[in-house]
């Protein structure tokens, strides 16, 4: 299960030029927005600046679970601003490894951190069980307009904010210029052109595949589905709409099926030895992937430096300009925290403070969700030689704006991820019709949801 594996730790950063007018105000916001500290965190209702300020100026210990490497520098900025608060950073594993521990602690009723890193795709899983507190009362709603709109849609429901966006993975296309040039292929702007280019490439050199559709990566499957307009899940109360085999999902499946059949697209597991080698030696002509990938590739396929270029994701309709998201994380506050004000302040500061956000973008190469960072020339102006001096960040910053909003995840993402690997991935490996796999997948998820007591509709 590789969902978001690279996404969260090795993301590139780029931002766009939107003037971050609100950014200057951002630093001040935190102090201004408080939560009433009167009741338990769950019933906090209104903003009380003085209560928040009081809470932030009393000695407090926070625990923060994250797998972002070297995040101590960002945390140091926070501790400098709030000298009474000490943050204990713990790496409890990446993705699933962390969630497993988190769940154990949540069930045990003790041992969970105050602030925790959670991928977008898992936010509903943890909000459904009421394990994340609403950050609205602590002033999170005031940050809304500073983040790229689709990211806010991923972490909030109405004015309830369950997490703060940390990094994102808007999807573009990395391609091997050397391979394209050698076989006379032009950069495809639509999926139709992509398929034609793939067929041509594969005919000229059967050992090359146009791209790889990983058989073990729900992040990729759903990222592509996202762009195709699919909305496989919608949750209302305990009513769940499951539409994994709807028309847009079918459109996507029917597009990839023939390419996989002919061998023009390979279906190797990703983040695996063979896969790294294939990226390095040009066996995959493209990687239709997220904004965290460019920097990730620089280190994991270092020998292919200079051969890669970046283009937007191929489109379903010519002239369209839409994308999906693959990976990325948030910072959330658990309901076990005894210091909700300080915990909320940390979650907001790390991702919203301009200095902290810029540090994440430039040091950890996380692709930022904050508009101001996405517009910072120091970020979008970068011209990595790995991509022949192309302004990679600038391109992905533009793509980030085109990610469709209102994509929803299921409240049991573990199961959906694992069944992606088993059913959809299984069909990819076996070169079986993908649309039939969607039907099986739909039935399997529906069955699981019913078992879990949801009222399931299609």
């Amino acid at each position, binding site marked *: 299960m*590789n969902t978001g594996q690279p996404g969260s730790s090795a993301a590139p950063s780029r931002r766009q030029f939107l003037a971050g007018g609100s950014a200057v105000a951002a630093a001040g916001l935190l102090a201004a927005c408080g939560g009433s500290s009167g009741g338990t965190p769950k019933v906090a209702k209104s903003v009380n600046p003085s209560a928040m300020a009081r809470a932030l100026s009393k000695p407090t210990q926070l625990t923060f679970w994250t797998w972002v490497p070297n995040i101590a520098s960002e945390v140091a900025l926070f501790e400098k601003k709030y000298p009474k608060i000490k943050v204990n950073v713990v790496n409890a594993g990446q993705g699933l490894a962390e969630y*497993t521990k988190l*769940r154990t602690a949540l069930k045990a009723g003790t041992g969970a951190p105050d602030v925790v890193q959670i991928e977008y795709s898992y936010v509903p899983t943890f909000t*459904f*069980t009421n394990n994340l507190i609403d950050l609205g009362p602590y002033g999170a709603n005031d940050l809304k307009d500073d983040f790229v709109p689709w990211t806010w849609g991923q972490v909030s429901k109405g004015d309830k904010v369950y997490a703060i966006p940390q990094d994102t993975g808007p999807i573009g296309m990395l391609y091997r210029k050397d391979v394209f040039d050698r076989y006379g292929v032009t950069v495809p702007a639509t999926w139709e052109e992509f398929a034609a280019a793939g067929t041509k490439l594969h005919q000229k050199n059967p050992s090359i595949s146009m791209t790889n559709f*990983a*058989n*073990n990566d729900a992040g990729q499957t759903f990222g592509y589905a996202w762009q195709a307009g699919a909305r496989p899940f919608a949750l209302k109360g*305990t009513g769940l709409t499951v539409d994994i085999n709807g028309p847009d999902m079918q459109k996507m499946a029917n597009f990839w099926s023939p390419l996989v059949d002919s061998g023009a697209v390979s279906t*190797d*597991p990703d*983040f*695996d*030895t*063979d896969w790294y*080698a*294939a990226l390095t030696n040009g*066996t995959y002509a493209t990687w239709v992937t997220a904004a965290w990938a460019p920097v990730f590739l620089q280190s994991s396929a270092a020998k292919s430096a200079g051969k890669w270029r970046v283009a937007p994701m191929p489109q379903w309709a010519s002239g369209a300009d839409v994308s999906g998201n693959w990976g990325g994380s948030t910072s959330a506050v658990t309901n076990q925290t005894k210091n909700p004000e300080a915990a909320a302040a940390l979650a907001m500061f790390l991702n919203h403070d301009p200095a902290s956000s810029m540090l994440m973008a430039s040091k950890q190469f996380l692709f930022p969700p904050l508009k101001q960072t996405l517009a910072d020339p120091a970020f979008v102006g970068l011209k990595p030689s790995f991509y022949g001096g192309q302004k990679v960040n600038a391109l992905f910053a533009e793509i980030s704006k085109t990610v469709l909003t209102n994509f929803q995840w299921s*409240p*049991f993402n*573990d*199961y959906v*991820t*694992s069944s992606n*690997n*088993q059913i959809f*991935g*299984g069909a*990819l*490996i*076996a070169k079986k019709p993908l649309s039939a796999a969607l039907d099986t997948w739909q039935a399997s998820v529906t069955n*699981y949801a019913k*078992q*879990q*007591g*949801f009222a399931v509709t299609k």
Partner: protein
Amino acid sequence: MAILARRGRPENKHAAAGYMFVAPFMIVFAAMFIAPLAYAAYLSLYSSRLVGGTVFVGLQNYTQALQDRQFLSGLERIALFFLIQVPIMIVLATFFALVLDSGRLRAPRVFRIAFFVPYAVPAVVAALMWGYLYGAKFGPFVQIAHDLGTAPPQFLTSGHLLPSVANIVTWEFAGYNMIILYAALLTIPPDLYEAASIDGAGPIKTALRIKLPLLRPALGVILLFSVIGAFQLFNEPQVLQPAAGSVITPAWTPNLYAYNLAFTDQRLNYAAAVSFLLGFIILIATYLVLILGRLRRRST
């Protein structure tokens, strides 16, 4: 001990001492084994849902598991694995042990260690290593096949996965079992060999007529371990999973299934029931092996 205790005062003292000696073990045993087991048994009688919470369902989880195709196909797979892998491993281990014991090797210690070393490699490391060796694109075997211009072997496809995993397990445990058998061979009294050689038995005849029959108890022990090991197969498929992708399904082995039910599907209660059923099946299989051994001993 209860009987002893009833007898009178002097023994009472001894009994108390006895209890004290076993206490450290019994306390840890109860806390780390009995208690979790009891808790799992308790869990298996409930059903916990995301919507609707936890309800008592009696034996429903068990009846469901007995009709669960994923669970049953995992059991079938593991039975097949057992039938293929265990005989191969035992034959290899016996062969190596006999060779070592024959005294015809130049540097027996070197060979003994060489056979045994795979066991010293942690299963996780071994599976990672084999994951690379089996690699479908750039693994060494595939590259050699590529250089020779032959069709590359596909170790990690659904048809070949079981033998591939069996190969790893054999590699890991043949040496370990060899050591057990070799130790058993060393306990055979030398006068038997003398008698055999006086009767004109050569080394091969000695091996077949003297050593093998006397190895039977040790072979029984190995078989017992292998039954348990095979039915609990978990590490290798779990670690190979990233390299093999969707070929290793969450229910590839029953143990893997129980794990994934608990930690992926969040169905702890059902996972507990599946684990108990698996434990029960292992118990039966172990018992069968024991009975088989006893019958044979009686017949000889």
